[in-house]
C-alpha cells in the first residue's frame, strides 16, 4: 500500500457515509492502490480518524467482505484478500449500463456538453485500460 492511500468522505454529501467509504475503498482496491495482503486500519481506528460511528465503518467493511475484497478476522484486523473477479452476467451488465446512462444524464443536466462528457469517458477508459 502506498503511503498516500487514504479514505476521503464528505459529511455534507447526500450519499450515506458507509456508502462513501465502500465506494472509495473499492476504487482503491480496483486501482491497486491497496493490494492483496495489505492490512487496513481496524474499525475502531478508522472510525476515530474519520470521526464517524464504529458501526458505519464496520458496515462498510462488511459490505466489502461480502464482495470478497476483505477478510475480517476478530482481533487480527482487516486484511485485503486476493480476489478473482466474478464473470458478469447479462443482468449485471444491464444494471451498470443503466447506472452509466443515469450518470451521463446527470452530467448533461449539470451543464456539461456532450463533447465534454465524451472526453471524460474517454479519459476514464484510458485509466481502465492501463
Amino acid at each position, binding site marked *: *500500500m*502506498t*503511503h498516500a*492511500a*487514504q*479514505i*476521503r*468522505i*464528505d*459529511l*455534507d*454529501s447526500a450519499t450515506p457515509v458507509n456508502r462513501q467509504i465502500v465506494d472509495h*475503498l473499492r476504487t*482503491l482496491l480496483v486501482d491497486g492502490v*491497496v493490494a492483496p495482503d*495489505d492490512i*487496513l*486500519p481496524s474499525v475502531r*481506528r*478508522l472510525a*476515530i*480518524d*474519520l*470521526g464517524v460511528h464504529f458501526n458505519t465503518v464496520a458496515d462498510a467493511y462488511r459490505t466489502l467482505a461480502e464482495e470478497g475484497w476483505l477478510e475480517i478476522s476478530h482481533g487480527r484486523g482487516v486484511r485485503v484478500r486476493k480476489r478473482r473477479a466474478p464473470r458478469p452476467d447479462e443482468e449485471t451488465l444491464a444494471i451498470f449500463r443503466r447506472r452509466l446512462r443515469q450518470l451521463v444524464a446527470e452530467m448533461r443536466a449539470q451543464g456539461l456538453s456532450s463533447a465534454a462528457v465524451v472526453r471524460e469517458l474517454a479519459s476514464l477508459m484510458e485509466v481502465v485500460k492501463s
Partner: protein
Amino acid sequence: MTADSTAMFVVVLSIATLLHWLPLWRRSSLWFGVTVAPDFRNTLEALRVLRQYRAEMWAVSVVALALLWAGVRGEASWMLAAGPLLQSLGAVIAFARGRNSTRPYARRPDGVRAASLAAASEHLPGGAVGIIVPYAMLAAAAIFLRANWRRLPRRFPVHWGINGTPDQWAERTWRSVDGPLLAGLLVIALLHVLGYMIVAGSPHGRMAETADWTARFRRANLRMIVTMGWTLATLFAVLALNPYLSSGDALVIPAWLMVGAILASLRAFSGPLSASARSPAAAAMAHRTNAGSWARSTIRTIRR
C-alpha cells in the same frame, strides 16, 4: 508582605497574562470556540471581541489583586481565597461573552474528512523501558526506605513554605514515608493512561494536508509524557528519600530546582514543535491545525 502572599500575587498576575493570550492559541478557523472563516481573526469584529474579552478579564484581575491586597493587610482572610476565585469566574464569563459576540459570524464546519489507510504503528517513545523505569525508580526508593527504616528520623518535615522553611511535620509511619511515592505512582500512572489514550483513542488527523504536522504534534505530546514520567519519578523518589538524605529539616533539592526540572521537561514538547514551526513549509501547513496555530501563536507571543 510574606513570601507566600508575594507568590499569590505572582500567580494571579501570571494567570492574567496567560488568559490575555489564551484566545489566540487555537486553529485559524476558531474564534472563542466558534467555527468561523479562516480570515475572520483579521476583521474589525474579531478584534473588537478580543478587546472586549481582554478588558473584562483584566478588570476582574485587578479587582482580584485588590482583594488579595486587602486580605494580605489582614482586613478579612476570606478575601485571600475570593481574589483568585473571582478571577477564574470572571475570565470564564468574559470568554462566554466573547463566544456569544462571535456567534453571529459562525459558519458550518467543513464536512470533508480524510484518514490514512497506511497509518504507521504508534507507541510511547522509549518502548517498555520508557514506561517501566519511572515505576522501578519509585519501587527502588520504597525498598531502600524499608531497608533503612530505623535510620529515618522519628519526626520529619513533609511540607515546606515558598522560602524553603518547613511548616508541616509527620511521624515516621508508612503513610508519611511512602506517601510521596504513592502520589508519584498515581500521577505517573495517570500520565501513562493519557499517553495510551492519545495513541489508541485520538484521531491521527482528519485532513490529509495536515497529517504530517498532526503526527509531529502527537509525537511531541508522547515524548513529553515519557520525559515528564521520568522527571516526576526522580523528584518524588528524592522527596521520599529526603528524611534519610537530609541532615536537618531542609529539602535536599531546592524548590526552584524541582520547578526548573518540570519546566525543562516541557521542552520535550515545545522544542521540536517550535523548531519545525519556524520552517516556512511546516509553518504553512501548521497554519491549518490546532497544533500549528498553538506553536505559531506562542512564537509570535515570545517575539513580541
